[in-house]
């Protein structure tokens, strides 16, 4: 009970302190440079000053947190990638030389590209379809909740679930994996799915798609509902059918959000490691970069240099997406 009270108190204080920051700084800014009640030159001068300062007031806490929690570690990682396993002696580029010659690393790069091609596309596609379809039926919310469920299941739970799907028992024995049970029922030969090189990548991807579709669905569904009703009504009056409304009116309107969902899932794929760790740990040629990094980072005391150098590669892979986003933002600003 005491702990509960303390917990609630800490929560309220923490959240209030945060809200107080925004309110008070803006209050102070408006108090020092008032623009209301003043006339002409003074007002417009003050307005210009506040307009220059206020974005940074708005951004300050975010920039602070991003710097400490993400930029500083990135800086550390880049530095560490030039050091040896204990992070003590400078070794130059040798971690990177090791990497390009490492078979497992090349395998991971190949697998990662497979993942990047398949998972974001399918997750976004299913998410969009589901978001659009469930909007039109009375039990849409129930359907959405069921699709969302995989997102809410903790990862250990998800690993068990898929164990019961991909499990393999010998031919003739009773299958406890659903997939093999279906294969056997159709007269096929059971397979140890996650041990089949190359194809096992796809079986692992299915898991991530299964989870991430819920994410895409929620975000896209919020976007779809943000489309002003008037535009749809206008299209209906013009005699457009369902497909036309969806592809010609709705999709273009939420194109930005689709791109955002796609980007987010793409980046998540670069980071995916717990699925691979729990299902195969990169065995049977299913290694991916993030798991390889985790492996070098922590297994048996860890090799920080090599772990960090793999992390740097993961971060470099995201550069094209960053450039694309800069272009988009610049285009947006011009149109504003």
């Amino acid at each position, binding site marked *: 009970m005491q*702990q509960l009270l303390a917990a609630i108190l*800490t929560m309220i204080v923490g*959240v209030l302190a945060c809200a107080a920051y925004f309110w008070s700084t*803006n209050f102070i800014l*408006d108090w020092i440079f008032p623009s209301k009640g003043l006339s002409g030159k003074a007002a417009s001068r003050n307005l210009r000053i*506040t307009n220059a300062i*206020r974005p940074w007031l*708005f*951004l300050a*806490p*975010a920039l602070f*947190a991003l710097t*400490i*929690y*993400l930029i500083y*570690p*990135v800086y*550390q990682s880049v530095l560490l990638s030039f050091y040896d396993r204990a992070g003590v002696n400078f070794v130059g580029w040798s971690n990177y030389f090791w990497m390009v010659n490492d078979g497992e690393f090349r395998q991971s790069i190949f697998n990662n590209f497979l993942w990047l091609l398949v998972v974001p596309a399918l997750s976004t596609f299913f998410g969009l379809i*589901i978001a659009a379809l469930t909007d*039109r*039926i009375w039990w849409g919310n129930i359907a959405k*909740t069921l699709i*969302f*469920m*995989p997102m809410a*299941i*903790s*990862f*250990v739970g998800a690993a068990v*679930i898929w164990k*019961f*799907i991909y499990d393999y028992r010998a031919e003739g024995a*009773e299958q*406890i994996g659903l997939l093999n049970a279906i294969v056997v029922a159709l007269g096929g030969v059971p397979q140890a799915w996650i041990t089949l090189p190359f194809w096992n990548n796809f079986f692992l991807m299915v898991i991530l798609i*299964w989870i991430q579709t819920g994410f895409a669905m929620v*975000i896209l*569904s*919020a*976007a779809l*509902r943000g489309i002003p*009703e008037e535009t749809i009504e206008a299209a*209906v009056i013009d005699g457009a059918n369902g497909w036309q409304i969806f592809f010609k009116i709705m999709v273009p309107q939420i194109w*930005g959000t689709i791109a*955002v969902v796609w*980007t*987010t899932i793409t*980046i998540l794929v670069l*980071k995916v490691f717990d699925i691979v760790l729990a299902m195969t740990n990169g065995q049977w040629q299913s290694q991916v970069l993030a798991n390889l*990094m985790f492996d070098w980072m*922590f297994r048996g005391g860890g090799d920080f240099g090599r772990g960090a150098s793999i*992390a740097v590669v*993961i*971060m470099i892979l*995201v550069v094209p*997406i*960053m450039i694309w*986003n*800069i272009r988009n933002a610049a285009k947006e*600003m011009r149109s*504003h």
Partner: protein
Amino acid sequence: MNPATRSPLMWAVHLSVLLIVALWTMPTAGLLISSLRDKDQLAVSGWWTALATSSRNAVARAPSPDSQVERDGKFVISGNILDGQAGQISAFGFSSREPAAFKAGETAELSGGEKLTVQADGSFEIVSDTRMEGSRGQRIFFTAAAPPRFTLDNYREVLRAEGIGASFINSLTVAVPSTVIPILVAAFAAYALAWMPFPGRAILIAVVVGLLVVPLQMSLIPLLKLYNGVGAFFGVPAKTYMGIWLAHTGFGLPLAIYLLRNYMAGLPREIMESARVDGASDFDIFVKIILPLSFPALASFAIFQFLWTWNDLLVAIVFLGTGQDQLVLTGRLVNLLGSRGGNWEILTASAFITIVVPLIVFFALQRYLVRGLLAGSVKGG
């Protein structure tokens, strides 16, 4: 659209949604059913068989010879191999080599000359002319048709675990501020990035996207070092709730800013212009217009951030510790699994216990994802 063309189309919609939902729910349904099953059955038969009457092979053990009674000059051990469970015996045997050698109702002669009879209802009798010896009861193999059998034992075991209530509160204490704080911080930043012109805006947006990719594991050691340094400097513990809120805030911010900025940038410009003409400052515009309009986006991000912090284990054990008073629910449940991490029955049950809270959050926030919020405000504003 007239009703005639609408109807088959709607049928198609209903059917395809049903199909997708069935596909997506199947694995989870398997987990749910598995969590209600006996732990020994999990590894021997598929979860879908749990729903149907199934034929199973099992072994039971008769009571030890201590329990024999003398009747009409013969020594008898009797009992029921189904042990109170429903079922129908079809065959039985006494050797592992021939577990189904006899049909129910038949009498088998055991190696020691005793006679074993097993009836279809599971009752059995071992009859011997002489007193039976030994400390172990006879093994009886049988094949039985068993109706579906479910148990809540797995849930009971998880919920009875010591300290689970405290862990539940710990998890809430971590998750709620770790959801609210980043949303507040990100909403202001997102507005600035979407609607306030200042130099370097595009670069900042790109930096945020780039930071999305930073692997969490990478940042743990430098950050914990920093925490230890700060803790030592102020003379406070390095691992506090404050610390983990900020950590979750930091890790969640890039996605929050990215999603919210995208949403806010899509809001109609006219609303803000008209407010500006009325003399509202950016702060007013943000609080009174943008924030309410962004509710669907805020709600959807809140759902995910809550989910991640609720299901997180790594950040919690690193920044909060694993002591009794800090252990979060995920940590507590994982500890239940024992040092070798087996016990799937506990995994299955605990997966459903942890899922409850995120689902409540999802339900609660789903109503903010309503259509017409935007349209209505445009008309009204």
